[in-house]
């Protein structure tokens, strides 16, 4: 039996309704991502990049289609199971870092691990230290986020995403709030992680960042218009 795709979106549609208007944020998306891939998702503002990432991260539901993660149809799971998948299989990296100001670096990284009941405090500690070492932030464990530079904050956020050993890292404009030097540092870190076997899906509108990915996917008006391993003819996609 062949190994299932890590992410398998089949004919996913998501529509936003306003009073007299329906807007297709995702329109018949077919997308498969295998373990170990580094995929960038790009496109103009409002094309549905972030919505696609939210759907993949189980932060948003969709109207039609199927979503399989590692062979399991996760879109059909209940709230608790979805939370479990988010916690164990997915690691999020946000544009705005989203560190909690009232927690120090260690606690921020530890936070998703506290949502698991199968880890002892000692195990959590080891996993946090390991994740922080991976992003070279082991020496800043007791610092508050406000004491760190933007690049350092994003590295902590990446450590938080990595700490639970997720199957896939979902990064939403990870360099959007950083200067070019810090942006380069973060992209190098993601490349290193990919080199170590991590699967990464990154939304970006920055072509320089997109260059780091091995596979480039483009969206336009909620449709997939470009993919080096396209799952459907481009023409069909355009015609909807």
């Amino acid at each position, binding site marked *: 039996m062949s190994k299932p795709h890590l992410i398998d979106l089949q004919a996913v549609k998501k529509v936003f309704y306003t009073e007299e208007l329906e807007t297709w944020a995702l329109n018949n998306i077919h997308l498969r991502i295998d373990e170990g891939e580094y995929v960038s998702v790009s496109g103009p503002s409002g094309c549905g990049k972030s919505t696609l990432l939210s759907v993949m991260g189980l*932060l948003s539901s969709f109207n039609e289609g199927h979503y399989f993660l590692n062979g399991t149809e996760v879109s059909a799971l209940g709230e608790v199971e979805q939370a479990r998948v*988010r916690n164990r299989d997915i690691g*999020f990296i946000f544009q705005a870092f989203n560190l909690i100001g009232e*927690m120090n670096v260690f606690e921020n990284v530890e936070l998703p691990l506290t*949502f698991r009941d199968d880890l002892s405090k000692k195990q959590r500690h080891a996993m946090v230290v390991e994740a922080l070492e991976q992003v070279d932030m082991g020496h800043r464990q007791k610092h508050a986020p406000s004491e760190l530079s933007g690049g350092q904050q994003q590295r902590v956020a990446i450590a938080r995403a990595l700490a639970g050993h997720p199957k896939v890292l979902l990064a939403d404009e990870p360099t959007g709030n950083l200067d070019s030097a810090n942006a380069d540092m973060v992209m190098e870190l993601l490349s290193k992680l990919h080199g170590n076997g991590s699967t990464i899906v990154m939304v970006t509108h920055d072509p320089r960042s997109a260059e780091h990915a091995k596979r480039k996917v483009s969206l336009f008006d909620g449709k997939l218009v470009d993919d080096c391993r396209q799952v459907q003819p481009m023409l069909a996609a355009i015609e909807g």
Partner: protein
Amino acid sequence: MMSNFWFDLRYAMRLLRRALSHSLLCAMVVALSVGLALFVFVMDYSIAYKPLPFPGADRWVSIQIAGKPTESAEPRLDAYTYQELLNRRRNVDYIGAFTSREAVLSEGEESNPLRAAAITPGLLAAMHVAPRLGRLFDEHDGQVTSAPAVILSYDSWQKYFAADPAIIGKQIRINAQPTQVVGVMPKGFYAFQDYELWFPLAMSPIASPQDSKLRVSAFARKRAGVSGVDILNEIQPIVQDVNKRYPGVYDAHRSAELFPAFRIYSHENMPIIAVSGFIAIAILLLGVMNISMIFYARLLERSRELALRSALGSTRRRLLRQCLLESALIVAIGVVVGIAFAELGVQWGQSIRDFPSRVLATGMPWDYPQLRPVDIFIGIFAAIVVWLASTLVPAMRMSRQDAAKVIGGTGKGATAGGRSRTATALVGVQLVISCLLLVICASLVLAVSGEVSKPRGVHVDGMYVTSDPTTFTSRYADAKARNNYWTDLERAITQRLPGSETAFATAVPTRPDDFPVAIEGRQAAFNESTLKLPVTVVSDNYFALMGIAKVSGRFFDGTDASDGLQVAVVDEELARRYWPGQDPVGKRIQFDPASNGPWLTVIGVASHVASEPYGGEKGVIYRSLRQAAPSAFQVIVRASQRPGDLASAIREAAYTVDRDLPLHNIQSLNDLLAALDIGYVSIVPVFSAIVAITVLLAGSGLFGMISRSVVQRTQEIGIRRALGSTKARVRNIFMRKAAIYLGITMVGGILGIVITSLLTSVIPNALSHMILVIAGVIVVMFLVVFSASYLPTRRAISLEPGDALRYE
């Protein structure tokens, strides 16, 4: 699992510390609402729900009589009616009675008044309480010819007889006669009042109501399966039959009423108890809404963090736990402080109960309030209700928010409409509850404080009085002997307290008892057959001593001989009522017409002396001490000596005149009147505190809610201004809403008037200050609502439209 919990708890504590002032505000709201509700609960329970401490106490009912339909029922049943009930009962398991009696215990050189009651012989046995020593009374003890016998309370056995184990059978000197101790009751035994000694109540059969002036507190014990209504249906026809047979003695509409035995003295307060219970719940509700809004605002500030937690894999349950944990800590602090507040309140309540017990020497009242462990559990339970009611809904809303929208920042304004409607509804409910509470409580405070502070019309400062009447012993059967006693006592007091003045009366000023009287020529006009007016018997110098002025005629003097013309003085209030526009001097009043009592000729009119609070200003009739020679009296002394020295000097003086007639409990008149008025006086601080707490809760809650709802619309203000609206037009939108809120206050005001009107049976003038109260409430609400609307609106419209549009 536990370490996860500690992780969340640590974080919640950190948030609590970070927003310390906000946390303290929330904790204070919880403390005030829970503390006040708990205090009211404890007071209400002790007054109206505390069961009496003997087996099967719930089966006992107090039989009370309302002399007229307009009068409230009292636990004073005349001996004849009691005899009829006793003889004609069919389904009532047991009927018994007691009446307070004086008991002076003379041992060696000391005489001590004891709190005593005469009880029907079978009463203690019917309570199923075994004596600690000796026996209970039997039917033989209740016969008039039986040798005097008493049962001692545990405390009096300890205090006066050093717990003598051989006390049973001993003769002790009570009321100047040898009396045998037949029993000692167990420790803590309490039968309706805190008595120190019990006599058997000897009641010989009487042929008509006029044959006995005895009044008793009567009780019935229900048989299993028999309801209070069944008993009432049985005794009511008996009472009505007695009324019919003796129309000159009883009002035709005199009726019996039944109350649970533990409510013997408190049933009249039930409207106040019910309203205060309602107020406690309303205050809790106010607190819940207040905290709910504060917590919701707090959670809104944390919406991004909560969305992030969701994105990182937190389940909704875990999010809820995190939200609830912070508020749980705040509520925990609040409940500890609230219970401390309640305890302070209860201690105040205890002092309010202690004061009259000490001044009136009535012993420990049964309704002595105490904060029991179960009350603390109730307080904690109330706090848990406050916690869940205030946090669960906002927390659930926050746990259901769209994490992607919040993190992506695309959800701005999406739920504003819903939030705005919720906030408007909450403001409306809070306004109604606040106005309702303010109207009820402020009305009561103004009404009662006006009544208790009315001028008494007598000198009070520097006056001392015996708190209970002293009853003459059988040695003083002759009126002359009594007159000689007063003369001797006055002389003895003056010798020990030079410069003092002593007077005698049968009642303290403002508290004369009502007696049946007839006013000559006025029977038809006043239905004189049952007319009862306040009558007090006073010595000649009473008026001068008490500072009561002569309006016309003269006061009593030496010419009013005991065998001469029987005379009376009336006060100007009574004169105005019964002889309007006439001079009462020379008019006649018959005292106790049913017993063919003496006709008294009015010789003078005295200035008005106020009645007790809500006693009804009926005026007063004074009789001459020399002529009436009453069987009981109180001593009033004006002196400048220190109270302690003065009391002992008066006691010593009485002891030298007759050791078997000790003067009871000498107190300053100020304290005595304050103790008698304490029930009403204590209403003022309690309801004032509720007014203050309501203003605080309503003020902070409404200001927070309204101003927040305006601030949330800052972007909308920017849009309106960008589209060309003037500042004035924008301001008017919010001012119009403020006016609607004020309209809602009227709903609360009307409900408040309705509930206050239910209290007029207890506080007759409860509605008398309503216009002032409503005006005051409107002013307070106006200040809160308009300042909460105007200030943030002004701030929002002072922003550049561009800044307002970017406002978060």
